[in-house]
């Protein structure tokens, strides 16, 4: 099923009056440290049918400002300014009046569909409730309408699924149900707060499509809040970039993406790894956003800005545009940028130097030694039923025969949707297993025949960095102890450990005196650096990176990715980089393996896989990734996959991708039969590029 995305911005008629206007909104929360000024003067307006994107990193006040519109902030918050809905000021209305507006005139879609639905009521009940609050509908009529709504948002078999409970829905389906609820009463405005952040890219593409459709059905204005500049590029008409509780740049998508004028926007755009090019290092924005408790005078971005002048530290610039340009920027040097003879936006940030390739990397790949070889690895879990007498009713084929190879100085990216078996693969490698099928060899040693002591010694060479730097560091241990732990375990002497810790901290760009502090004193990016230092403590050969940057903001993420590249070159490391973000993988990996339902469906050199993806799944996956480039986004054709990832307990016969495969639907009968009968194996398409598809053919999708 190939669909073309509808053209965004069906020219919002400038004549129509804005449906939602926010003017000079301020929100402050009391806290023990003092007043937190979460939002400090936000103004925007949206017209019917228009999509406004609000972009910003965590803590920029973007979610708080939308909660203020709905009147759903905690009672302790104090809100100033004006919020006008269809000309009527709704700020300061009581719960009774606001309840009439919420759900009827403003619909809301939240970030995490897993927790946003009440677990004890069926999906139908919850939609019926949303309908009956605002409309005088009988139970039967409301139920009928609920089924219609589920059909609109693309829930298959809505007559039956209407009685399902939230836990019986996948994440994507729950988000569809949320959208159904948001549009139930034909709202004038839909506020979507990171509606696709928790979803896989293929599901994200589906949900964005549904959201667009919902807008077409209702004609509502959409306020889309996100941290993902790619999602907005093709979806929004206008963009507002927020920093430290204030808008710092607003304009049409084209203005903001192609001629950004605020250094923060420029930095943000430069720090995202992009799917459509892999050249050059990422440009991180140094430092972290300021504390919102006591902001110093002047521009809040001044401390991180590469073009700060003295005047920036004196007064905070307000959002202004020169005469005749509708593209206001909160920067006193904003319009020096891009002016003839003035500053060049692309050059204001210092470009970090690419690390020189290490000795191993300079060798041709064939001459390098293999660090990790995985051959036909299988991990099946029995599916049991019964409380007292358990019997086996099926098999979960989490990993169903995969082979990988990582050579010295190489990064292999392992990508796939959640549930495809990435994590099981990684845990199996870390576990150095003895049972089930397949072999894992580390540095040429087959792990099946290892003795206990050798096994422990081998663990030194394979270390791991986990996704969540908040959860993977023990909050009760000072950083020095965290770093010393692996060293003590492997019997290092006290003196050697004491010498190693400052060395490690400097290696990852932290200060030696940070060793006495506790993890919670560090920001997310710094914590991930500590995790990396811990992984490097024992001088491993192979580091397994499990979504190392997915919990970080983009401007921070760039710094961590650069650090990883740098360390790889300096220390001659090899990485197994597990991620769902394909842009990040494109930027970091030398080779990439795409996983689907326990199998690798396409593997090869990164540029080959990304430029000539040959498996229909890889093609769909790549086409689903939004690009931070409005023109390209509008011209792109998305390959939308139908449905969700099948359960690994119920793998289809023949090719396991065929029931979602866009290609399969177009094949003639003889070819289709081959897909049904024969399980395709990886076969070579070019040097170091193979795909597991009977009918593999390259297709450019980026």
């Amino acid at each position, binding site marked *: 099923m190939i669909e073309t995305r509808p053209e965004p911005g069906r020219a919002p008629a400038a004549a129509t009056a804005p449906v939602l206007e926010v003017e000079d909104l301020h929100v402050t929360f009391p806290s023990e440290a003092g007043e937190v000024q979460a939002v400090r003067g936000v103004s925007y307006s949206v017209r019917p049918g228009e999509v406004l994107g609000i972009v910003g990193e965590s803590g920029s006040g973007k979610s708080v400002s939308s909660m203020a519109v709905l009147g759903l902030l905690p009672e302790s918050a104090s809100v100033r300014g004006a919020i006008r809905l269809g000309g009527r000021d709704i700020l300061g209305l009581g719960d009774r009046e606001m309840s009439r507006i919420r759900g009827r005139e403003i619909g809301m879609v939240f970030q995490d569909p897993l927790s*946003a639905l009440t677990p004890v009521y069926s999906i139908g009940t*919850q939609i019926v409730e949303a309908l009956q609050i605002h409309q005088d509908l009988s139970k039967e009529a409301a139920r009928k309408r609920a089924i219609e709504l589920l059909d609109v948002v693309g829930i298959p078999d809505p007559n039956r699924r209407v009685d399902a409970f939230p836990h019986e829905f996948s994440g994507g389906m729950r988000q569809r149900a949320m959208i159904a609820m948001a549009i139930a009463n034909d709202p004038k405005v839909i506020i979507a707060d990171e509606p696709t952040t928790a979803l896989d890219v293929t599901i994200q593409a589906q949900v964005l499509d549904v959201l667009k459709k919902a807008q077409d059905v209702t004609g509502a204005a959409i306020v889309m809040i996100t941290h993902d500049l790619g999602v907005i590029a093709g979806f929004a008409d206008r963009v507002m970039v927020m920093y430290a509780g204030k808008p710092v740049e607003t304009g049409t998508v084209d203005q903001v993406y192609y001629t950004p004028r605020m250094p923060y926007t420029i930095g943000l755009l430069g720090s995202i790894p992009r799917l459509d090019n892999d050249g050059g290092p990422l440009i991180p924005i140094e430092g972290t956003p300021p504390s919102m408790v006591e902001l110093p005078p002047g521009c809040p971005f001044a401390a991180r800005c590469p073009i700060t002048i003295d005047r920036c530290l004196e007064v905070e610039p307000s959002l202004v545009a020169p005469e005749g340009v509708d593209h206001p920027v909160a920067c006193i040097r904003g319009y020096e940028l891009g002016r003839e003879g003035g500053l060049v936006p692309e050059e204001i940030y210092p470009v970090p130097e690419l690390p020189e390739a290490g000795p191993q990397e300079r060798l041709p790949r064939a001459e390098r030694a293999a660090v990790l070889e995985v051959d036909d690895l299988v991990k099946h879990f029995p599916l049991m039923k019964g409380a007292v007498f358990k019997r086996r009713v099926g098999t979960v084929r989490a990993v169903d025969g995969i082979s990988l190879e990582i050579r010295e100085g190489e990064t292999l990216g392992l990508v796939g949707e959640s549930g495809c078996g990435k994590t099981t693969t990684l845990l199996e490698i870390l576990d150095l297993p003895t049972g089930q099928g397949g072999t894992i060899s580390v540095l040429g040693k087959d792990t099946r025949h290892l003795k206990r002591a050798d096994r422990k010694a081998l663990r030194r060479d394979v270390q791991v960095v986990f996704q969540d730097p908040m959860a993977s560091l023990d909050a009760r241990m000072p950083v020095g102890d965290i770093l010393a732990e692996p060293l003590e375990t492997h019997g290092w002497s006290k003196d050697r450990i004491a010498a190693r810790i400052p060395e490690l901290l400097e290696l990852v760009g932290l200060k030696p005196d940070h060793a006495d502090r506790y993890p919670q004193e560090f920001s997310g990016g710094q914590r991930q650096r500590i995790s990396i230092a811990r992984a490097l403590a024992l001088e491993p050969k192979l580091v397994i990176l499990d979504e190392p940057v997915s919990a970080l903001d983009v401007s921070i993420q760039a710094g961590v990715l650069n650090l990883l590249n740098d360390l790889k070159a300096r220390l001659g490391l090899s990485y197994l980089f597990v991620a769902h973000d394909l842009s990040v993988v494109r930027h970091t990996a030398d080779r990439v393996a795409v996983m689907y339902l326990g199998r690798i469906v396409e593997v090869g050199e990164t540029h080959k896989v990304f430029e000539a993806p040959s498996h229909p799944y890889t093609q769909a996956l790549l086409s689903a990734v939004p690009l931070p480039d409005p023109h390209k986004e509008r011209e792109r054709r998305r390959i939308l996959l139908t449905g969700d990832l099948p359960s690994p307990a119920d793998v289809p016969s023949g090719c396991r991708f065929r029931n979602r495969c866009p290609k399969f639907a177009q094949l003639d009968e003889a070819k289709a039969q081959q897909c049904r009968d024969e399980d395709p194996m990886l076969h070579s398409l070019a040097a170091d590029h193979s795909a597991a598809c009977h009918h593999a053919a390259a297709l450019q999708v980026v």
Partner: protein
Amino acid sequence: MGRFLLRRLANYMVLVIVASCLAYFLAALSLNPRSNFESKNPRPPEAVISKTLQEYNLDPHTPVFERFGHWAADVATGNLGKNVKGGSVNDDFGRRVGVSVRLLLISTLLGSLGGVFLGAWGAIRQYRFFDRFTTLGSFFVLAMPIFVIAISLELLAVNFNHAAGSTVLQYTGEYDPDVNGFWAQLLSRFNHLILPTLTLVLVQMATYSRYQRNTMLDVLGSDFLRTARAKGLRRRTALIKHGLRTAVLPIVPLLVYNVVLLFTGATFTEKIFNWHGMGEWLVDSINTNDTNSVAAVSLFTAVVVLVAGLLSDVIYAALDPRVRVS
């Protein structure tokens, strides 16, 4: 669901049988019914004592397994045996269950509902006056053994009656045997219920409200509550319909077990206010070396655990679709 419950019932039945048999052995081996007769004045002749004990299936000279055999065979036919005084344990049992139910039905209902309400409201008003007051009050009650509470209430009633000049508040027994007429007797029974009910309600409310407050606090910040309000539900409706409905789930098993087991465990309250219910029976029958009565109470307790278990499974499944087995 039905099959699941049947299987659970079978499991529980095994437990009931094992528990009540073990309790019989414990009672039969450790209690000495003979001493009751030996301390009588005038002391009956040896032969008479032995004969009576034999007749009651209480004779320590009969091997314990034989006595157990008799007892088990009787119980299987619904006969719980004879007590040390020769009366039917079945009669005692029926009377005492009735007393316990009359004492506890109202107080457990009030205690559970009150506890849930107090806890939920305290969570909503976290750190406000109501919350601080109920928290302090709960810990004050929880810090006191129940007999201290019961006796303090009794003392207060005595003083109150003294001040009033007549017995306004009753604190002994279940009803006044001198009162005649349906309405007058009902009033008298009600009056006698006030103090023991108050004692039990206080303790239960204090306990349950602490659990309920915690589970409610977890739910208050939840996304689905925000969704419910974004749909247009008023704050209070959302809090009750979506919040409390979910927050009550984790404490359902606790509530059901505590409430049901109270029917054999309100010993102090029954003793102090002189109600002749199940709790009092257990203590009294141990004191009087009444093996068969002890065995009957144990059997009843085991059955009550079974009921509590089944009930909590059923209620939980009814409230939470996530645990329903398809």
